[in-house]
């Protein structure tokens, strides 16, 4: 065994034992870094892909199967609904519906308050008289006829413009059969289903839309369709079927992109690579159609994409930005105050004579390990009584109290180790303890102060318990915010990952830039031995 381990590997110029040792080290390092790396990668990925593929697949184009369906004909042909769909004939897109919800006994007198923005609150009803054609800013025209028919037309052949319209708001003044007048509340039209276009192309009627629509009305251009199939059989179903049989029974990989499928009523369905599908029928679609909708599966290729969008979202809309500031507000004073207090105490413990010195210091050593849980309940009662709970100063003092034992311990170890001669000679020169401390000891112990500062900074920054107990919702720090997110937004990984990484960024920067002091502090802080 030992002979084998000592054998030389020629290329690497090392023994087998050394090679194995190195390999093991690499393995451990990888295991230790991979989870963090995964979080970093995840936080940079598009939120839609986070749930469907692991971060380890972030660099390869992944495929994802999804279900989709055309809108039901019944839904879009409903006569007096607010929803209608765009028809294209002779180069003009037309959207037609009833402005009065199909009440035939009323007549429109005038209308107004036309606006695209969903929050519009223009209550005008007499901007235009019935039948007047109103040009809209996007180049389209709207008319509301006396019988209540609303016609919205556009010659703009880019129907994207239609898709991005959230809705059209308007008010109508109308006459009732008895001659009295009334006006509608603000009504709004929504183009439904979003992005669906009904087109009369030559002899045939075509229903077109895109499977890559997202809820914001935009098409995700990065994706492409790989294949598609009917809706019944799962992707891997091991089923054979007769050629030319029912589309509904086909699998997701059965049809190539762009392939036309003939459905049982003779209409054809095609799904293109860009996600646009066309459902072409020789006759107009009617409510009596046998095939009411086409349900299908498709497999899409998702190329790798990274962005800072998640960070942007988290910082601006999820309150993480203000938590970040809060964390700084808590951390910095909570780092400085204990250092100042502890430095004086450490000096006294090292270089001044007073009764009880040893025993008080032993108490400090004992307090090093006292769990802070033991203090929380009475402290909160005191805080509530004095009125400093849920305030930053209360938080600073709490962290000062909990950090003080370690601070005193660390600093005393260091300050006590300064050469006796320096202190003695300063004393002989007539300097008081206060002068010696400020002029001599403080500058000399900067490394120890830095060590403790890093400790305390990391501890306060990363603390959750004290923040939960002593801070309110108003002054949420990052840790409690993330903990909250973990509970309430457990599936919104894009928020979690970026928030977590934001909270980790500052400690990591501090850690990597000041690692030397940190290590030194660790060695001094563990009860001797290092």
């Amino acid at each position: 065994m030992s002979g084998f381990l000592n054998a030389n590997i020629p290329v690497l110029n090392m023994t087998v034992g050394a090679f194995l040792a190195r390999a093991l080290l690499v393995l451990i390092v990888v295991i230790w870094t991979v989870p963090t790396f995964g979080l970093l990668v995840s936080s940079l990925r598009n939120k839609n892909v986070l749930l469907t593929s692991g971060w380890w697949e972030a660099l390869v184009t992944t495929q994802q199967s999804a279900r989709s369906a055309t809108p039901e004909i019944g839904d879009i042909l409903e006569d007096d609904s607010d929803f209608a769909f765009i028809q294209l004939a002779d180069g003009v897109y037309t959207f037609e519906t009833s402005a009065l919800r199909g009440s035939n006994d009323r007549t429109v007198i005038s209308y107004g308050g036309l606006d695209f923005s969903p929050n519009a609150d223009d209550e005008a009803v007499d901007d235009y008289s019935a039948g007047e054609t109103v040009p809209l800013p996007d180049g389209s025209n709207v008319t509301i006829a006396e019988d209540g028919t609303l016609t919205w037309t556009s010659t703009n052949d880019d129907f994207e413009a239609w898709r991005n319209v959230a809705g059209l708001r308007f008010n109508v003044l109308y006459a009732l059969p008895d001659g009295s007048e009334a006006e509608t509340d603000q009504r709004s039209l929504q183009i439904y289903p979003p992005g669906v276009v009904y087109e009369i192309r030559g002899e045939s009627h075509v229903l077109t839309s895109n499977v890559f629509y997202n809820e914001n009305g935009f098409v995700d251009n990065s994706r492409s369709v790989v294949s598609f199939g009917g809706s019944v059989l799962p992707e891997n179903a091991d089923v054979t079927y007769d050629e030319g049989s029912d589309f509904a029974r086909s699998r997701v990989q059965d049809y190539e992109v762009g392939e036309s499928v003939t459905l049982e009523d003779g209409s054809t369905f095609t799904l293109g690579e860009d996600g646009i599908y066309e459902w072409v029928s020789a006759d107009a679609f009617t409510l009596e159609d046998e095939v009411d909708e086409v349900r299908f599966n498709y497999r899409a290729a998702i190329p790798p994409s990274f962005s800072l969008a998640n960070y942007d979202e988290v910082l601006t809309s999820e309150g993480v930005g203000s938590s970040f500031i809060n964390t700084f507000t808590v951390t910095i004073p909570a780092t400085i105050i204990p250092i100042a207090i502890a430095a004086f105490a450490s000096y006294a413990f090292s270089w001044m004579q007073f009764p009880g010195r040893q025993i008080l210091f032993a108490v400090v050593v004992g307090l090093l390990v006292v769990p802070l849980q033991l203090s929380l309940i009475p402290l909160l009662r005191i805080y509530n009584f004095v009125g400093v709970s849920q305030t930053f100063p209360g938080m600073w003092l709490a962290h000062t109290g909990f950090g003080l034992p370690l601070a005193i311990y660390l600093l005393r170890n260091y300050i006590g180790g300064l050469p006796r001669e320096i202190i003695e000679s300063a004393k002989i020169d007539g300097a008081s303890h206060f002068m010696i401390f400020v002029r001599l000891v403080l500058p000399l112990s900067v490394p120890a102060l830095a060590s403790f500062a890093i400790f305390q900074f990391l501890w306060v920054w990363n603390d959750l318990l004290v923040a939960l107990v002593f801070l309110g919702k108003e002054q949420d720090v990052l840790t409690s915010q993330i903990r909250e997110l973990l509970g309430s937004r457990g599936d919104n990984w894009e928020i979690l990952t970026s928030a977590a990484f934001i909270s980790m960024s500052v400690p990591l920067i501090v850690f990597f830039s000041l690692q030397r002091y940190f290590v030194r502090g660790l060695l001094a802080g563990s009860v001797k031995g290092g």
Partner: protein
Amino acid sequence: MDQEILNQLLGAVLAIVLGVGVMVLYFWGTNTLLSWLLPDESSEGGTRANSTDEDGYAFSPADALVIVFGAVMLVAFYFMPWIQFDDRNDDVISLTGSELASVVLEVGDSENVTEGDATINVVETRLILDGEVSTYAFDRQRLNEVDATIDRTDGVTSLWPFIAMAAILSGIWGVIDRRRQRAVAMLHLHVGIFGAIYFLIFWFQMGRIDLNMFSIVQLGWYLGLIGVIGLCVQAAIPRPGIMDFTRATDLREAVRPWLFVGPALLILFLYLVYPAIQTVYLSFGDGDGNVEVTRPVYPEATDELALTLTAPITPERLAVVQEALAMSYPSLADIDLATVPDNMETVRDAVEYFLGQVEQVPTVDALNVDTAAAYTEEAYTALRDQLAEDYPLLSGYNVPTDVEEGFTNMGDAATHLLSVVDPTIDEEFVLFRNYNWAFSNDNFWIAVRNNILWLLVPVLSTIFGLLVAVLADGVRWGTVAKSLIFMPMAISMVGASVIWQFVYDQRPEIGLLNAMVTFFGFEAQNWLVIKPWNNFFLLIILVWIQTGFAMVLLSAALRGVPEETLEAARIDGANEIQIFFSIMIPQIMGTILVVLTTITIVALKVFDIVLAMTNGQNETDVLANLMYDQAFVGFHSGRGSVVALMIMVAVVPVMIWNIRQFQQEESFR
């Protein structure tokens, strides 16, 4: 940038400047003041007075300082507007409809308040609670919810820090007193004076608080504590052979160290020592005066009362007050309004009058109950219905489950029922009920078991740390490797939890572990619900964090092993593995122990990981999380204190070992 954020930043900067400024001012100021008060007389040269000098005790400026400080403190405490005995305005309560029926005086205007996403219809209402009138805002929609928690801020309890300060000061005074032999006597004098002042003030405050037996017991308890702490301070301080304070210089140099350590000691005492003692005390309490009240519902009565407490009393209003209070205390309905004294001015007077007329609730002994009998549902129901004849509030009343858990016999149940109808509600001293709850509660034992399981963390971290320390030694990129393994130390446990959620997630598309498991053809698992292994998966996270710490310490220790010893062993023909186990390990045993104990403490206190990952579900609870749950989610500080004490008990051996270790080193110093 947001104006609000800017303001906050400015505030933070200001606070830092102020905080640091106050400290500088303190240290510089006190030191300068000391030099000024006690100027150096060293110019007179070497004659030092002898300590056997029995001249009378000279009243020193230091004494004056102590007295002035104490006086200011007392004045501030009792007369500052921010401290009042009946200051309960900040309490948040929720009440049942019947609670309202029994205690509502005035239903104010309602207003809508936005809280998060929800809009709540809040009604400001004046209530009689515990015989006192207070104003609360509460949620109108939730009137019928059960479980009302009334938080009593008890002024007496909050005297603690001041008492403690007095104890410390008198102790220190005793120390700097040149006549040590009289120090203890001086201390007792202080206790006596302080106690007398306290009692006098207490006496004057009587009109505003319920002075009951328990408060007096507390008073004695405080005074006793002053004596004990003072004595401890005295006893802890070794008697110096000769300490001569006849000269100002000496007195000054004796005081100065205390100026240096004073703030530190004060903060340590306030934040660690005193709360620890108080926690022990609280563990015997019923939940610090949190009175849990659940009462049946009289919805129709809620809105009928619309009286302002300060409104002048009229016969009609008097009748309304009587009717409202009679719902809780039927005997009040028999009072003839004609007999009511006519010197009342406001509604408040009327309320106080009626409450004064309430017959004393019988004691448990007066009830015909076998207090020692075992608690059963049936016996409880019978007792309740019996009591409900006199106290309609109790009809249909059910004990909150967590209170019920604490019942050991029918005596407890009877006490509880009476406490519901008692017009005065006192902080209850329940002795071992909280301990009973803990030791008979499965969740507590699961938490204890899990904490023991978590002790794997120090072992695993040390092993991994040692492994890395050895492997990385002498490798060119060893520092980089160590730095990467060390990195998790900088990450918060909450952050680590998010990181590891990505490893443990049930979906193989997200969870790395399940992706690997499914890659090898196994079924994906929900790792965090597999009992008891889920604990193992959680504690791995802490191992991941702590290994870096172990590695740094051990690698430094390994470097300290003399190279000659290793050389000698190699020459003797030992192989590397033998050298490692029989030479290196024994040499660094001290460090290994340090690492083990340090990480043990961390593991015993672990909280964030459990809270963030599972919140103790599926038998993953640990003591620290249980404590948080009980004390700050369930607001039962008595039970929280018991659990906190259990953590402390677990830590004590390490603490003792640490102090021993420290004392050994000191003897070599």
